């Protein structure tokens, strides 16, 4: 996990301020010209604080505003005022299109790519184990210190491990180090460039870049305009939501605050998780091992994109079942045909899942917890002080547990045990690199008969890039909330029967 996950930095602050400004203007139906002021409102100093010049800082904020409205990165290269571009974009399609995750190229500081360097901790010691352990003979002992021949070095790290003075460092590009599928390459100016054929939109590089040079697109504006237009907008909220808005803000308060914002209803996506775990247990019981060798779970879109893009041979063994998001959205639309559905979650790649042909009529907007927190502030909704209504009881203990790594497999295997008397072997992967490794094992035939859970984010959804809390804190809240459910297993959940008719 990136070292920056869960730490509040100035990058996080600027990102959130941009979201709050976009939300503020959407809520008051502002003229496009108002957007031109955002870079000046956010960077309101006399001199640059972070970069070479204040003009560059403001230009980066402007780029964030464009992407915050879902405009394509290319719009930053056009000679147009922020407001002009926005007016044209909103008049034309005005919707999010791929690619979702983009490098703001002029914000990238061209960090060196993966390399081992000798620092001046080197004492040029007599033993110089570094040069002895190097398998490619890349290290020579020069006049003052050991020197690594970068042409020969294969970055194996043996010298670093052997040095008694910690004199050798491995310098990695933070964005590339965070990417488990090696999608970060360099452009001709040595700036980071995302290879979109490899990228699975997990969003971890957004968190990892210490210069805030990577951003995804957002639907804050589109969602709020729809609510303001008086449409029947209903929310489904992902299992990792509890605790994300602070220790005094209960799940019930979050629901009440969303209603105050103008949403007509809020359902737990964990309800969809209950549907999904029953469905996947049924699939497993029927098809494994006769029709297919193993079953991979379907809830994490980036995990399924890893299969699509990197290990296509296993694709057919990843469940065809729908994700909890889809089930939850279907249940809302079944009851309210004219409604629009917004998915609120920790996840960046759900924004893409919602664009796919199978899902686009079910989920209309996807918003992260972080974006929602900014919306609440823009709308002047004080979460610690909202009045709550009834308790929420949409989902089972195991459904609510979907947000933590291990929770998906636990839910499915409990159903298998209770309903089919099957106790499958389980393999779990969290983090992209581990997802890819697991899928390669599956491809090699090593996981026959297994139930395989894959989550692109370390720790599961609570480790998602759209969360506000440190991962371990989020995980604790999720477990506590799961304990409060009136139902233990998915098949005991009374809301499912009600929804199915």
């Amino acid at each position, binding site marked *: 996990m990136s070292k920056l996950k869960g730490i509040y930095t100035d990058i996080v602050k600027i990102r959130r301020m941009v979201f709050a400004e976009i939300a503020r203007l959407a809520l008051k139906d502002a003229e496009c010209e108002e957007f031109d002021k955002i870079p000046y409102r956010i960077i309101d100093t006399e001199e640059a604080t972070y970069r070479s010049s204040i003009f560059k800082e403001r230009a980066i904020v402007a780029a964030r505003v464009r992407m915050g409205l879902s405009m394509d990165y290319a719009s930053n290269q056009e000679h147009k005022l922020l407001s002009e571009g926005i007016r044209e974009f909103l008049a034309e399609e005005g919707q999010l299109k791929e690619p979702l995750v983009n490098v703001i190229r002029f914000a990238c500081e061209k960090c060196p790519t993966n390399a081992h360097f000798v620092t001046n901790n080197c004492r040029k010691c007599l033993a110089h184990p570094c040069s002895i352990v190097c398998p490619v003979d890349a290290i020579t002992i020069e006049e003052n210190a050991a020197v690594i021949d970068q042409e020969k070095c294969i970055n194996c790290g043996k010298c670093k491990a052997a040095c008694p003075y910690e004199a050798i460092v491995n310098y990695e590009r933070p964005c590339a180090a965070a990417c488990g599928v090696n999608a970060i390459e360099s452009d001709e100016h040595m700036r980071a460039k995302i290879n979109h054929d490899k990228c699975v939109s997990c969003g971890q590089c957004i968190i990892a870049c210490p210069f805030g040079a990577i951003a995804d697109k957002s639907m804050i504006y589109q969602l709020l305009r729809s609510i303001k237009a008086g449409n029947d907008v209903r929310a489904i909220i992902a299992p990792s939501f509890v605790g994300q808005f*602070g220790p*005094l803000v209960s799940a019930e308060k979050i629901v009440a605050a969303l209603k105050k914002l103008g949403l007509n209803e809020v359902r737990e996506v964990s309800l969809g998780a209950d549907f999904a775990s029953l469905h996947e247990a049924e699939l497993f019981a029927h098809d494994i091992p006769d029709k297919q060798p193993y079953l991979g779970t379907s809830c994490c879109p980036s995990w399924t994109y890893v299969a699509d893009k990197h290990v296509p041979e296993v694709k057919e063994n990843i469940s065809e079942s729908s994700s909890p998001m889809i089930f939850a959205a279907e249940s809302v639309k079944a009851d309210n045909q004219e409604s629009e559905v917004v998915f609120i979650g920790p996840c960046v790649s759900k924004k893409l899942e919602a664009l796919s042909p199978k899902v686009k009529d079910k989920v209309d907007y996807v918003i992260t917890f972080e974006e929602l927190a900014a919306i609440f502030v823009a709308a002047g909704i004080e979460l*610690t002080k909202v009045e709550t209504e009834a308790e929420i009881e949409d989902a089972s203990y195991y459904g609510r547990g979907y947000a933590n790594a291990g929770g998906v497999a636990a839910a499915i295997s409990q159903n298998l045990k209770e309903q089919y008397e099957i106790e499958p072997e389980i393999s779990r992967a969290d983090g992209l690199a581990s997802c890819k490794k697991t899928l390669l094992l599956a491809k090699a035939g090593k996981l026959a008969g297994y139930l395989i859970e894959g989550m692109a984010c370390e720790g599961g959804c609570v480790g998602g890039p759209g969360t506000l809390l440190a991962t371990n804190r989020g995980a604790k809240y999720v477990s506590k909330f799961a304990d409060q459910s009136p139902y233990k297993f998915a098949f005991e959940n009374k809301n499912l029967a009600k929804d199915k008719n």
Partner: protein
Amino acid sequence: MIKVDICVGSHCSLVGALNLLDNVEALQLEYPDQIVVNKVECLDMCDDIKNAPLVKVDDELITAAQTQLVISKVMERIK
């Protein structure tokens, strides 16, 4: 006892109060007999978000509170 009130309202949480709370609570574990940490509701001083997050160390109000500053204010008082 040094009393640290950390506002965890909407504005303060958006701009870093939750991370600050993590850090102050970690400090509290080191000095359990000397520090008490309270999470408090919106103090109604966040109309201008530039004031957030708000923290009180005993009776001293800190606006735009950053972890480093809050921790040093607490450490000044530790015996």
